[in-house]
């Protein structure tokens, strides 16, 4: 479908968002609405002996207070294992655990009542280090022990490979507990309806799964629950799992009144999902010409208190632990380990940034030891389509490792790096480094990965695209609009989107895993095709034009066996009672078999990016500024350039945060960085200048050639920043974020 033209329009949601008129779910109010308060645990690890709600109930304005006994269905949620209680009955495992829920007529009363709930605890020892937590005598977070998942993937003989290597780079790396810090905190309104059903208005990444999780919690039929989750005020993975929905659903069903909650930033930072910190132990062996021989990687994932997606994240990390380099001998082992360190779940990159920081660092260190340059050593090892990956599967879809590497090498920043590195201040040092990354897209093997869309021809001849995938800022709805409009040959202003709701839109899977644009491209194309079939069918029924006739979109209408008809004409004739509807469904291609012992692996389609970074290090203070980043990205096909650049800008800022600033500090289970003055994210003053290099190598399995790009754009920049610090100063950064003090201490190892 190369002939399809994508008009470069401004974001379809720009005006509402810029003017503040867009209503997020957290902006909604309903008559008679109550306010919820989550009574959180006082300890990071304790048995709950008793919960006395009598004083709280007695407070004027309190409508109800719920404890674990009031959960009507299954008291647990979790995308993979429902091991996180909605209300803890016998045990708390982190500071954000809920021990009771309050609904009151005002938020103030709800908060006051929460303070009156009396909980008797028996404090348990805290386990706050994943390696300690693996020891047999460690305190147990869950009865079954602290191992959430253990995965081992091997190929060849890693010890033999390391023995044959001319140089072995062996290090331990540590990565931060990054917070999503979406502008909209976890929030929403649960509305009980007259027929006993429930409407849930809460921004999230997958309404259709929320519906099922809520049904499980409430113990009612999923179809008694309607979820509205679009638009979302920022997600980044933090709204993939349920957050507050279970609590407000229970309160709404109990009180029969709408119940709202909007978490404060502090409560969000203490109770919300985070990125898993990893400890990555590596031994990487190279021949003297730079050829990789072996990579031995052991990851310890700090799972925090509950499973959520920690297992799949560990496995995706292990899939990428040797990137897509040609490594004959590998041993990738990982432990996802429960601790009392908050809770961790999905986050843009999904385990890949953690392991590639380690691998790409080893790569540059080997290059330095072997006298090779960073591009040469990588080029020697990148895989091509048809080759076997480090975890043993054959790469059947497009591989652009070499292409993004070539492109970033040709960037202005890399070509002129020696000039960029000049500085006239004696205390400043500048460095440039590069890195590249693949990022597996989609849900992987063994998990049905599907998506549907409807294109409705409305009464007025315009279109409604119905698709589950939400807009949380990525710009996908602009892309969906352009794809639909391009296929239909109409102006994008004629397509509106209904998304993220279990009624009125179609299940298209989660808005995660770099899968939205790709899934939508195929679902929308299928729906468009079906619309043509429907038009032909309608014409045939009326004019007997033949059931198999082909209708093709052209200039605001369709060429049909009954001649050219504008969409207005078709609508006039066929869409007056109910819209003529094209239905499209798509199933992701996957590998034919799973990597043994590694659920979900391998992934089938990858995104690719390479990034070069210029940093300036102040050797007197350790302050590091990221000045410029060049990004080479394969979009498959660019639907909207501004949105692609927007993803790069945002991804680089989030990668920069990971590399230089962000970490949720937890000491003995207590969060110390409870707001945005101590949890440091980059400001507009901190983000770099950008150089964009967009490649378009169409992904063959997308009807429109597109690939997902949302995650990969934040990955290579992380090692690139750490390695640029090395280029500037000679020190290797093994722990991120590279805060001023951390860098200073690396520069001055004598300082105690």
């Amino acid at each position, binding site marked *: 479908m190369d002939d399809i033209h994508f008009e470069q329009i401004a974001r379809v949601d720009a005006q509402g968002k810029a003017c503040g008129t867009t209503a997020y779910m957290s902006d909604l109010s309903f008559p008679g609405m109550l306010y919820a308060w989550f009574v959180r645990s006082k300890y990071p690890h304790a048995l709950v002996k008793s919960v006395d709600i009598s004083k709280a109930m007695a407070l004027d304005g309190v409508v109800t207070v719920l404890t674990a006994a009031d959960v009507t269905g299954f008291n647990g949620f979790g995308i993979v294992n429902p091991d996180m209680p909605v209300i803890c009955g016998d045990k708390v495992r982190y500071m954000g655990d809920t021990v009771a829920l309050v609904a009151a007529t005002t938020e103030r009363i709800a*908060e006051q009542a929460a303070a009156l709930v009396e909980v008797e605890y028996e404090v348990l020892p805290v386990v706050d280090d994943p390696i300690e937590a693996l020891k047999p005598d460690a305190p147990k977070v869950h009865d079954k022990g602290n191992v959430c998942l253990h995965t081992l993937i091997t190929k060849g003989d890693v010890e033999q490979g390391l023995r044959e290597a001319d140089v072995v780079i062996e290090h331990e790396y540590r990565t931060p507990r990054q917070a999503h810090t979406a502008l909209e905190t976890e929030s929403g309104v649960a509305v009980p309806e007259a027929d006993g059903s429930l409407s849930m208005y809460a921004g999230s990444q997958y309404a259709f799964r929320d519906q099922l999780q809520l049904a499980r919690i409430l113990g009612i039929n999923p179809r008694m629950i309607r979820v509205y989750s679009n638009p979302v005020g920022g997600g980044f993975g933090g709204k993939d799992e349920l957050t507050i929905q279970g609590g407000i659903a229970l309160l709404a069903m109990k009180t029969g009144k709408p119940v709202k909650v909007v978490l404060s930033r502090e409560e969000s930072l203490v109770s919300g999902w985070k990125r898993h910190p990893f400890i990555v132990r590596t031994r990487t062996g190279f021949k003297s010409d730079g050829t990789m021989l072996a990579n031995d990687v052991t990851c310890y994932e700090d799972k925090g208190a509950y499973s959520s997606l920690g297992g799949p994240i560990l496995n995706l990390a292990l899939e990428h632990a040797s990137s897509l380099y040609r490594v004959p001998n590998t041993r990738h082992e990982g432990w996802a380990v429960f601790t009392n360190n908050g809770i961790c779940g999905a986050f843009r990159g999904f385990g890949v940034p953690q392991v590639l920081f380690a691998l790409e660092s080893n790569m540059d260190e080997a290059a330095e030891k072997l006298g090779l340059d960073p591009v040469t050593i990588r080029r020697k090892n990148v895989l091509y389509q048809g080759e076997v990956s480090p975890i043993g599967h054959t790469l059947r879809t497009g591989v652009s490792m070499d292409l993004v590497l070539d492109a970033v090498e040709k960037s202005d920043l890399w070509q002129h790096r020696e000039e960029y590195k000049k500085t006239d201040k004696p205390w400043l040092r500048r460095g440039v480094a590069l890195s590249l990354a693949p990022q597996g897209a989609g849900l992987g093997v063994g998990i049905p990965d599907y998506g549907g869309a409807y294109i409705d021809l409305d009464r007025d001849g315009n279109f409604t695209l119905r698709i589950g995938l939400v807009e949380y800022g990525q710009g996908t709805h602009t892309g969906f609009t352009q794809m639909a409009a391009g296929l239909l040959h109409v102006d994008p202003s004629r397509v509106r989107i209904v998304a993220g709701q279990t009624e009125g839109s179609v299940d298209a899977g989660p808005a995660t895993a770099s899968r939205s644009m790709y899934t939508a491209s195929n679902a929308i194309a299928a729906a468009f095709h079906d619309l043509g079939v429907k038009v032909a069918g309608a014409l045939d029924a009326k004019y007997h034009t033949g059931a198999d006739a082909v209708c093709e979109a052209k200039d605001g209408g369709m060429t049909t066996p009954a001649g050219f008809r504008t969409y207005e004409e078709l609508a006039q004739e066929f869409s007056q009672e109910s819209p003529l509807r094209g239905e499209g469904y798509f199933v992701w291609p996957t590998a034919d078999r799973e990597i043994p012992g590694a659920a979900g692996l391998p992934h089938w389609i990858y995104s690719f990016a390479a990034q070069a970074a210029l940093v300036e290090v102040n050797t*007197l*203070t350790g*302050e590091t500024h990221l000045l410029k980043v060049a990004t080479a990205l394969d979009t498959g096909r660019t639907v909207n350039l501004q949105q692609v650049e927007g993803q790069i800008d945002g991804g680089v800022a989030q990668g920069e945060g990971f590399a230089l*600033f962000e970490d949720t500090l937890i000491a003995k289970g207590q969060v110390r960085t409870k707001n945005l003055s101590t949890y440091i994210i980059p*400001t507009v003053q901190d983000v770099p200048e950008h150089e964009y290099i967009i490649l378009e190598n169409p992904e063959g399995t997308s009807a429109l050639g597109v690939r997902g790009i949302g995650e990969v754009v934040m990955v290579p920049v992380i090692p690139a920043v750490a390695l640029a610090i090395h280029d500037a100063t000679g020190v290797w950064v093994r722990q991120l974020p590279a805060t001023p003090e951390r860098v200073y201490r690396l520069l001055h190892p004598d300082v105690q």
Partner: protein
Amino acid sequence: MIKELEYYAARDLKEALKLAEQYGSRKRFLSGGTDVTVRLKEGLVKEDVIVDLSHVAELRFVREESGIVHVGACATHADLSASPILQQHGCALALAASRVGGPQIRNMGTVGGNVANASPAGDTIPALIVLDAVVSIASHKGIREVPIIDFFTGPGRSVLAAEELVTELHFPATGSGELTGFGKLGARQAMTISTANVAFYFRIGDNHRIVEARIAFGSVAPTVVRAHKTEQMFCQLPPVLSWDAIRGAAQMAWKEVAPIDDLRATAVYRKEAVVGLLAEAAYEALASCWHER
């Protein structure tokens, strides 16, 4: 949760002083509110009356009169950063104000609030100290003047009595032959509380040497501190732009500060970093009048 408060917006200084007298220690002044509102939210304000000074127009000014620069307590950081008077006659203060928070905070936050708040990390404080500023304090009883170095008694504590407020800060206008500057170390480029900060004042004599130096450090002791020994070291420097020599002089600061470990940084690192911070800022300033040999 923000508690219920009585709120008064004073229309002028007289009314502010009257309200201050009337409510004494029950009241808390609010100027830009950028510190008070944060405290309120955290439940750290024990007072239950707010007296808002932000409408007191007579306290918002920057002017120079007969060699003295006067800065009104309600002048905002944005006012200070953009003031041509300060750029010429008190550069360190303009620089310090320009590094406070971000644009929104600079538009609201005031120099009076920064001083009265008495945080050891307050960015304008070291600048005011090296400029030898005097704090004008008013109450219904009258006005008293306190040299800024004597104003602070501990972290968050000052000599201000309950019925008193700061009306202005004033200091001798700097002129030719006088260099002032400011340096700040934070977790990022903007919106960051200083991990450490420094301000300096150098008077350059006819022999091009530094004949008088004043150096103050913030965030490295319970209050902002003068570094007298370091000042002497700078006065002994030969008038030649030498990075090693300037850095050597700054090294003395290590001994003059007494920081603590906190979430932002360890004490040891702060000691190391202030040396660099001073060396860097001083080098940049001295480069305007000294040359490499």
